[in-house]
């Protein structure tokens, strides 16, 4: 039986005094890629930040199990070094710190760096720039992918890497992500589903107002969202069942 690389059990999270995630449950088996859909502000990025261990995301209840180990209270870097890596949607600009310092921390030779750069068609000059300072939207996305490629983790979380990039860059990013996910597990957040043209995902979830309301085939769910919008999800019978379940649990 395949073991789960990640388990999120009954997770509730508060950010700045507001409850953003409520009783979230998620199981991702080793070697599978799952997708998380949801409208703006539904809690998708919050889930990723909480799995990564960002302190601003305060866990009220629940646990996060990675490779069978409870990582709920581990510092961010220990989670990263265990193999949880994330490509952020809106990474900060870090003045004074060069991208090269991160890439070289994780690579052992210039040839390895060059190969990674080639995969995302990333200009070597950008390595000597301060992280994200003056980067274009596409460069930020590529820089994030480049960093997690260098980190070589077992579980990759990819947040909106397909949004705000042009057709050519989407293809480059999509292929790089697909290549990277081969033999690995991942959780992908996508608004429009463009990335799914390149990546073969095994399951998908819809998150609404901090709660996972349904799961199923990524293609089916995406088609439904693209045709009906998230308005449909609010009316979905699955959501009502989920709500009743939650009430019973309380």
């Amino acid at each position, binding site marked *: 039986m395949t073991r789960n690389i990640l388990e999120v059990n009954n997770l509730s999270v508060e950010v700045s005094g507001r409850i953003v995630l409520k009783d979230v449950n998620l199981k991702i088996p080793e070697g599978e890629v799952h997708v998380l859909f949801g409208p703006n502000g539904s809690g998708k990025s919050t889930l990723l930040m909480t799995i990564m261990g960002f302190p601003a995301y305060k866990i009220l209840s629940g646990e996060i199990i990675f490779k069978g180990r409870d990582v709920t209270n581990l510092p*961010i*870097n220990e989670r990263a070094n265990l193999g949880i890596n*994330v490509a952020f949607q809106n990474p900060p600009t*870090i003045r004074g710190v060069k991208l090269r310092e991160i890439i070289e921390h*994780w690579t052992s030779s210039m040839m390895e760096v060059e190969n990674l750069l080639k995969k995302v068609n990333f200009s070597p000059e950008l390595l000597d720039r*301060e992280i994200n300072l003056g980067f274009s939207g596409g460069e930020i996305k590529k820089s994030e992918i480049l960093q997690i490629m260098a980190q070589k983790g077992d579980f990759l979380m990819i947040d909106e890497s397909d949004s705000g990039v042009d057709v050519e860059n989407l293809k480059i990013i999509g292929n790089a992500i697909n290549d990277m996910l081969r033999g690995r597990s991942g959780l992908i957040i996508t608004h429009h589903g463009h990335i799914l043209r390149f990546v073969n995902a095994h399951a998908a979830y819809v998150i609404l107002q901090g709660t996972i309301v349904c799961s199923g085939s990524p293609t089916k769910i995406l088609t439904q969202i693209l045709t009906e919008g998230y308005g449909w999800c609010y009316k979905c019978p699955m959501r009502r069942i989920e709500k009743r379940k939650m009430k019973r649990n309380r």
Partner: protein
Amino acid sequence: MSDEKNREEKNEEKPLEDLGVSGLSRKPRKWQTCTPSSLPEVIIKRAYEVGVVSEDSRAATYFQIDHSVLSRAVQKAFQGQLEVMSTKEAMKKYDWSKKYWWNLINKDMDQFTRLAYTKWDHGYFIRILEDQKVTLPLQSCFFVFTDYLNQNVHNVIIAEPGSEAQIITGCTVHPNIRGGLHVGVSEFYIKEGAKLTFTMIHAWNRNFNSHPRSAALIEDDAVFVSNYLLFQPVRNLQTYPTAYCKGANSRVEFNNIIYGSGDSHIDVGSKVILQNSGARGEIITRALATDNAKIYARGLLQGEHEESKAHLECRGLLLSDNAMIYTVPELLAKAQGADLSHEAAVGKIAEEEICYLMSRGFSEKEATSLIVRGFMDVSIFGLPRNLEENIKRIISITAERAL
């Protein structure tokens, strides 16, 4: 009556205690002339920390301990390109040089300039001869060896037309020094088409006072780059160099990296006065305060010509809740069309940045260190490579200490 005796008498009514520094000595031992590399290891080590290295890798070396000039040698390969001597020696040797003394700085500007005028303990006279491009940096060191010493130096630097040079000045003290006062007056003359990069590195101690007073006159098409770096605690440090961009297309850059620690009180500023067409100025300051340090980072851009332009950028990073950084950027336009701007930002290291780097596998300490090191990165200053490497080494040591 000699000029020096006259000066001493004038200062009688101003005892050193009035300067807020009591118990200062004016009678250190005399040091014999020697090559700096033959000095005791402890002196060489401290000098190295402020960028002063073996004289072989410098075009010229001036070394002063307390009130004694130990060395003022120009390497053979650079003889005929430049001159280095004590300012007292230069005053005797060249009668014409008098016009460069107390010309840009008023000797009555404050109590410290008056002190330097009346009790003058040498300093260097550096002259880069016309059209000479000096390929290796020149270096100088002001070393305080005697406890509670008052050292007042007056430097005059002349870059003759078309010349180019880099000067590194390191000012420091013996590690056992408990206190003292250093006053350094520096007057720079950057003549037509000349380019001078001047880097001053200070490493004092927690009960030492330092009051440099500097000014530069920049003529047509000339460039003056002044880098100031402070990495060790100091009791009280105050400096506010002024650059007069008098010539057409004259240019000045002030780059300051200030690391305030302990109970340091640091007041550092730069003033740029743009007086001609095409005059350009830039002030970049990075101030980093930890422990109980207080840093005042000032800057004044004064546009007196309609086709002049200058920018001031100050960034401050607080590493302790008891530290303070106060930035005072000032713009003064006296001519329509003078283009003056400034930006300033002061704050703690953003948690978001630390978390981001931690998500890339760095520990919290490593992430902080990366940010602190990056904050003090001198590569933006465009320094000569060997000097940049030297400063990076010092910054690396400082970042370790800061954390």
